[in-house]
């Protein structure tokens, strides 16, 4: 299979910047710090009481997992907010559109590029999250569910970032749009989760509906991005 030229180009330029190693170090540093602090308190507590609480080990995993999800929510828009607007700022978008590339190729190439960076973050954090396996308590299904949640989050946030980036010319404005959309979306998810019983929806159904909605919205946002960068014929007026 032939790699998208946009994806390939973005990967080359991305690995040449200090940003990517800095980001990996920062994310894993934050996660490692949380895990080590928790481990320290668990062992301190064990020394003081003579008891080892396995619940506390599970708590380490949940904290690290939640922190990673939060970091992805924060990082994904920052990674993608300049994807299209950056091409506009560099005046390369017009050049790309004069080639054989379809606007879809550009949007999908950008999407895959940002997603690959987020997956790199997830993969590099696996050793830290795996500390929980020292003591057990987390099943493989739970791990897969967590990775699926991260994947859906990454897909959604990347799509939001790309759409924001296609709607406006400046990267700063694109960032603002993306964070607002993500904040509102996740606030709605949290509110729905809190009131799920009042709405008479089971947890499993709520999760599956949220996942389906997020994936559909992601596809829709990528479509909007494609439309935004496609040169369009203006609709003729009735007199026209």
């Amino acid at each position, binding site marked *: 299979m032939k790699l998208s*030229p946009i994806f*390939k*180009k973005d990967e*080359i*330029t991305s690995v*040449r*910047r200090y940003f990517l190693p800095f980001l990996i170090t920062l994310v894993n540093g934050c996660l490692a710090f949380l895990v080590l602090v928790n481990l320290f308190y668990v062992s301190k507590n064990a020394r003081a009481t003579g008891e080892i609480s396995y619940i506390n080990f599970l708590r380490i995993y949940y904290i690290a997992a939640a922190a990673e999800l939060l970091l992805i929510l924060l990082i994904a828009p920052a990674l993608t907010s300049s994807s299209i607007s950056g091409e506009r700022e*560099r*005046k*390369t978008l*017009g*050049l*790309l*559109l*004069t*080639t*054989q*590339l379809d606007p879809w190729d550009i949007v999908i190439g950008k999407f895959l590029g940002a997603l690959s960076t987020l997956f790199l973050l997830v993969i590099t954090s696996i050793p830290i999250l795996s500390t929980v396996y020292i003591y057990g308590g987390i099943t493989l299904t739970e791990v897969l569910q967590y990775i699926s949640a991260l994947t859906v989050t990454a897909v959604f946030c990347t799509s939001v970032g790309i759409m924001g980036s296609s709607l406006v010319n400046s990267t700063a404005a694109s960032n603002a749009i993306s964070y607002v959309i993500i904040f509102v979306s996740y606030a709605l998810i949290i509110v729905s989760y809190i009131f799920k019983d009042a709405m008479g929806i089971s947890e499993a159904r709520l999760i599956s509906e949220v996942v389906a909605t997020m994936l559909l919205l992601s596809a829709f946002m990528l479509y909007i991005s494609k439309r935004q960068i496609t*040169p*369009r*014929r*203006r609709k*003729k007026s009735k007199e*026209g």
Partner: protein
Amino acid sequence: MISLENVKKTYGHINALDGLTMHIEDGAMYGFVGPNGAGKTTAIQIMCGLDFPDQGVVMVDDMEAGSNVRRLKRRIGYVPDYTGSYPNLRIIEYMDFFAECYDMNEPKIKRRIQKLLNMVGLADRQNQYMDSLSRGGQQKLSLARALIHDPKILILDEPTAGLDPNTRFEFRQIIANLADSGKTIVISSHILNEISELCTDIGIIDQGKIVMEGKIEDVLDQVNASNPIIISVSGNLSSALATLRADKMVKSVSIRNKDLLITYGGSDRDEAQLLKRLVEAGVNIKGFHREKGNLESLFLQLTGAREERRVTYYEAESDF
């Protein structure tokens, strides 16, 4: 052939193109000139498929622009007035990237890139990063990029703007060589000497319309015909002025360094008669010829010299 028929384009309340009609023959080197804001870039972007007209028909190589976009893009190479660079890419990677964007097959890519980098003189710098290039170097790279898929038509929007004279000369040589290879070249420029030296055809655009179009020598002939007649006279001017005043074809007269400059509306035969009458009136004539036109005078005449001409008329009236 590229043809635009009655093309209109508005941005808000601004008429960027107001019934633009222009025709570019296959193999022509077409100079597209006009003042800032005349609509050159809009017209070029429409030709390249980066924008669409509100009204009118744009045909590129017998295909309507916007209908068969992939085939059309294959035939056009576009050099904008900016480079559009990726600072973190090496020159060779930049070329490679655009070759892939044109879906070229691998074995062909390397040979084509080397040929083009040799042509623009960047082959020995191919492993350098793009941001190490000067403005001239970046513009040469932009030209090489636009030629990567060997397009039949090359469209250049102000390609030499901001370049030093040496680079401009080199750039002109490259474009002249490309024209010899049979490509249709459209070049918009403010440097009118460049256009008159390079181009076979010219279109002058003002306020979204073509105000003059044709073969460059025909256009210059027309300019010559509309230029003033310069009469060099020795001695007293009064009898010459009296004779000129009596001729209804003389529209205005002004004096420049002891020469009389007249705007004359008559034919070649009328001009000969005027000369005869001046000689018969005893005027000592040292010279009688029409001022040679150039593209610059035509451009000013058509697009922006209305105020200057009013001054000339004022001078003429005062001299009379």
